[in-house]
Each structure stands twice: as structure tokens, then as C-alpha cells.
């Protein structure tokens, strides 16, 4: 427990990954719960959880860029597409193993992300948002026009990865793969924030000119933020492509970019735990809405046709409500709940 003060005497103590034994035990319990989930959940739910894990990887990637470094990107959808297509081309066309293709997909996306990050040196805020939007449109255009490489608008078909003789074709097998990658991503991102690079990112976010005066190479760190972020987005894209086993340009539209931005805003900007909460929230929102519609269909039978519109409506409303009433996102709500119970009954 750390209720009554902070008794660290060395920097090494301060930098520890797990501040207390309690934190370590909590982490182990969470990991065990996640690994044990498929034993209790149905295949449908395992599939949904897999999607949540993949979205979390992408959301953490975006949060490194937008939450930590303060560079807005509305082009995540296209970068997911770059990851997915790279993996598709490498595994289906070139016949390379998934285990090699996955990191290459990340690296290729990181390179392209870094390339589109170069304008960020001159552009800020709104202008950068529009530049990344342009990246989104242009990348998707290239993907849907380069028929020879990407199969054009028809898309490509992928298969699930295998380990030796064992294929990860079941939902459970793929779930474990995604969860392990998510854990590695969380570990990396946590360590990144604790490092010199992470602190440089924060300095760039808070005031980039001041950061430059203090000796932070703006160009290097901005492009690096774009590259690291795109790497994880690319990995998420490749995982998603092998999960759905198909890639086509319309899977990576502007709408997807917005969904990812919504994840980190609803989850909490700059918070890794928040990215996961947001990813789970946004991924499960349509599921929750469709069951809500099942209930309401008795009253309004034509509701089924309106589902996609209704989804958009609620999605927009949720974003606005969060921005107005809880800008800190789900992560902040979680902290408040925790604080309430910790101080109970003497909260002030």
C-alpha cells in the first residue's frame, strides 16, 4: 500500500516497473485472468475479446503518438491497412511465414508512418490533422489502384498462422496470440514512458519550442513518435487481417481512423490502461447496441434497417458526452472509483 507517503530513496526505486509488491501481484492476477478467460467464455465471446485485444494494440500505438507526443493523426485507418496489406502480400503472394511477415508489416508501416510524420515538424494541431487525413486518402487510393500488388478493390485472402503442425485457426488459439502481443505492447509502452525517450515525447507534447530549447531534437523525436506509433498500428493491422482473413480497401476507411481516435479519447489521452479500456468500449459498443435493438424491436420493428445509422448516432453522442463531461476518459473514471472506495467512508 502507498496511502501514507512515498519513501523512495534512490532513483532506481523511483523507476521500478512495479512500485510495490501489491502492484506486482495485481499484474499477475490480471494476466492470469486474461489467459484463463477462454476456458469460461463461448467461442463468440473469445472472438470479440480477440478483436478487443487487437484494437488495444492499435489504440496504444495511436496513444503514443497523440496522447504522449501530442501529434494528432486522423490517418490510423490507412496505416492499419498498410500493416494488413503488407502481411497479406508477404504471406499469400510471396509465401513467407506469418512469424516473419508480422514484424515486417510493423516495420513497413513504421517507415511509411515516419515518412508522413515529416510534415509534423512544420505543422501543428489542425494543419497536422489535415495532413494525416491527406495521408489516409492517398494511401487508400494507392492501395485500391495498385491492382497488381494489392488485388485492387477486390482485396486479398489470408490464412491463419501456424506453429509447426499446429494451426491457430480456432478462435481460442488466435486469442492467445493476440493477447500475448498485447501484453508485450503494454510492457513496451510502459517502459517507453519511463525512459528518456518517453519523457522527451511528453516535453514535445507540452511545449515543443521549449523542449527544443532544452536540447530535445524535435525532428528526431517527432518522426520517432510517428514511427513507433505506426509500428504498433501496423502490427494491429496485420493481426486484424489474419483474424478476418481478408483485406480490402473499404475495411480501412476514414471511419476506422475516427474509431481509433475515439478509443483513445474515451479511454483517456496518454494512458495505456485507458487505451485498452477505450478499445474494449468502442469494440463492444456495436454489440451492446445490437442487443439493445433486439430488445427495442418489439416496440419499433423497423429499427433493424436503421441499425448502422443508429450506431453512428450513438457513437457521435458518446464521443461528445465524454468530451464535455469526462475529458479524462474511462481511465479517469476508473481512478475516481478506486479513490472513492479507498477513502470510503471518509471521502472528502
Amino acid at each position, binding site marked *: 500500500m502507498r496511502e501514507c507517503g512515498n519513501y523512495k530513496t534512490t532513483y532506481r526505486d523511483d523507476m521500478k516497473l512495479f512500485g510495490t509488491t501489491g502492484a506486482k501481484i495485481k499484474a499477475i492476477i490480471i494476466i492470469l485472468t486474461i489467459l484463463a478467460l477462454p476456458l469460461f467464455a463461448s467461442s463468440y465471446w473469445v472472438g470479440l475479446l480477440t478483436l478487443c485485444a487487437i484494437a488495444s494494440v492499435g489504440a496504444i500505438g495511436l496513444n503514443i503518438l497523440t496522447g504522449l507526443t501530442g501529434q494528432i493523426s486522423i490517418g490510423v485507418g490507412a496505416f492499419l491497412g498498410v500493416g494488413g496489406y503488407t502481411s497479406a502480400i508477404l504471406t499469400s503472394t510471396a509465401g513467407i511465414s506469418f512469424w516473419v511477415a508480422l514484424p515486417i508489416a510493423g516495420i513497413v508501416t513504421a517507415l511509411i508512418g515516419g515518412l508522413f510524420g515529416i510534415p509534423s515538424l512544420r*505543422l501543428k494541431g489542425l494543419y497536422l490533422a489535415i495532413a494525416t487525413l491527406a495521408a489516409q486518402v492517398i494511401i487508400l487510393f494507392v492501395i485500391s489502384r495498385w491492382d497488381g500488388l494489392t488485388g485492387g478493390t477486390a482485396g486479398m485472402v489470408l490464412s491463419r498462422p501456424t506453429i509447426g503442425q499446429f494451426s491457430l485457426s480456432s478462435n481460442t488459439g488466435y486469442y492467445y496470440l493476440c493477447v500475448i502481443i498485447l501484453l508485450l505492447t503494454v510492457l513496451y509502452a510502459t517502459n517507453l514512458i519511463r525512459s528518456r525517450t518517453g519523457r522527451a515525447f511528453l516535453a514535445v507534447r507540452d511545449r515543443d519550442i521549449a523542449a527544443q530549447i532544452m536540447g530535445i531534437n524535435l525532428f528526431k523525436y517527432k518522426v520517432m513518435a510517428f514511427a513507433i506509433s505506426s509500428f504498433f498500428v501496423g502490427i494491429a493491422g496485420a493481426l486484424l487481417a489474419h483474424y478476418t482473413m481478408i483485406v480490402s480497401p473499404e475495411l480501412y476507411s476514414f471511419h476506422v481512423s475516427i474509431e481509433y481516435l475515439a478509443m483513445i479519447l474515451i479511454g483517456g489521452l496518454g494512458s495505456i490502461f485507458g487505451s485498452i479500456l477505450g478499445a474494449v468500449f468502442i469494440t463492444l459498443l456495436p454489440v451492446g447496441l445490437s442487443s439493445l435493438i433486439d430488445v427495442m424491436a418489439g416496440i419499433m420493428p423497423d429499427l433493424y434497417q436503421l441499425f448502422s445509422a443508429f450506431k453512428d448516432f450513438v457513437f457521435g453522442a458518446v*464521443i461528445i458526452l465524454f*468530451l464535455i463531461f469526462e475529458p479524462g476518459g474511462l481511465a479517469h473514471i476508473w481512478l475516481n472509483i478506486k479513490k472513492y472506495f479507498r477513502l470510503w467512508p471518509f471521502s472528502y
Partner: protein
Amino acid sequence: MTFFLQMLVTGIVVGSIYGLVALGFVLIYRASGALNLANGEFVIIGPYICLVLMTAYKIPFILSLVITLIFSAILGLVVERLVIRPIQNAPVVSVIMATIGLSSLLGGAVHMLWGHQTRTFPQVFPSTPINFSGLIITPVYLWSFIVVIVLLLLFSLFFKFSKMGIAMRAVADDRQAALSMGISVKFVYAATWAIASVVAAVGGVLLGNINGLSPTMAAIGLTVLPVVILGGLDSVLGAIVGGFIIGILQNMAGGYLDPLIGGGLKEVAPFIVVLLILMLKPYGLFGSRGIERV
């Protein structure tokens, strides 16, 4: 040569509508520094209301247009009060995201209320094309061009001479200083959103008369982004000139390059231009350059 001129004329007319929609962006950006990504939805809500008034209630075009514009102004006021004002001082990403959320919300509402089919306006403008020595222009195009030019003139006069317009410019220039001179910044913001919403509705009604009306038309909100970037985010003149340039460019790309690569370039060309402009001249043709201090 006729083909070239035809492309040019179509480009100018389409560009004039782009300019009008871009004007909505610029007005809001100038006043409150927010980029209204829900502008596309503002563009389609107006004509839907106008259409419903005309077809379901048999109200003549001019009267339903007036009602539409009043409704649009109210919509702008409501949006400003409920969504934008509470997050005025939030970081840029939040404001952008709020308008994106707003666009999703309004788009969903339009979809739920009026379905996704394309609807056509009842005949408002005569349909016989006018022939200018070989160049064919439909009256709708001509009218939209005239309306745009008139509106632009009105706006330049408004900003130059009216008290309200000057107050708006003052707020855009320096909010603190404007406040201390006794200008109600809240009122200026609200008025800006109302005006921008009305301008968007006018653009929408013209577009609806040209192409028919469907929820996908909201995509113009994004198509117009290159226009404002090219012209400079805070310049009214820039919005207009940018609108013409992008309109012409789009039609030229569509007419000459699309057959070579198999289509689709028409939508992408403006964004390629944007990327170039952002790298070479980030504040656009007429935008004011920001100076930053720590």
C-alpha cells in the same frame, strides 16, 4: 478546346460551391479557432428540410428556403451552445474530435430520419441548358454561380462595414483585446456558428438542386478541406479563390488524367495538392502566418 473550356466552366461552377462551403469553415475557424468537421452534415441538413417542406407541405421554394435558413441558424446556435462552448478551452484534438463526433451524430440522425435513398428536388430552376457559343451550362449551375458571387460580395461588405462584422474580425484577431473593448465574445461565437450554418445550408440547397440529395453528400465536408488549406484557414478571400482552384483542378484531373489510370483521381487530387501545400507553404495562399513564443 471545347472539351477544355467545358471542363474549365464546370470546374468554376463546382468551385464556387466549394468556395461557399469553405466559407463556413473559415468563418468558424476565424472566430473560434475550431475546425468544423461536421460542416458536411450542416450542408445536407438544410436541403433535406427544404425538400420536406416543399414536397410534404407543398410550400413554395422561396418560402421553404427562408424557413430552412431560419432553422439552420437555430441549429448552429444550438450546436454552439451545447457542444462547442463547454469545450472551448480544451486541447485542439478534443475540439476536432467533438466536431467529428457531431458529424457522426448528425449524419446518423439524417440517416434515421430520411433514409439513404437519393432524393431529387422538384424542378426549381428551368432545365433547358443555355448554350454559350458551344459551351453548355445548365441554369442551375449559372444560378449557383450567381448566388455564390452575390453572397461573397455581401460577406466582404459585412466584414468591412457592419458593426457585427468588425466585432467578428476583432474577436478573431485577439479575443482578450476584443473582450476588453466591450465586445461580447459569446455573442460573436454564437452569431458565427449561426451564419456558418446558414451559409452551409445555402450551399447544400444549391448542391441538392444539381445532384439530388443523399446522406453521402456530407462527404463534401472533407472534400472542401483542401480548399481551406490552399486558401489559408483564416482568409475569406482564400476560401473563394481556393474553391475555384480546387474545383478547376479536380475537373481537369477527372477529365484528362482519370481515363489514363482508371478513375478515382478526381477525389484524391485535392489531397495530393494539400500535402504539397502543407510542406511548401503551410499557411496557404492568403492565410496569416502565426508567430510562436515560448
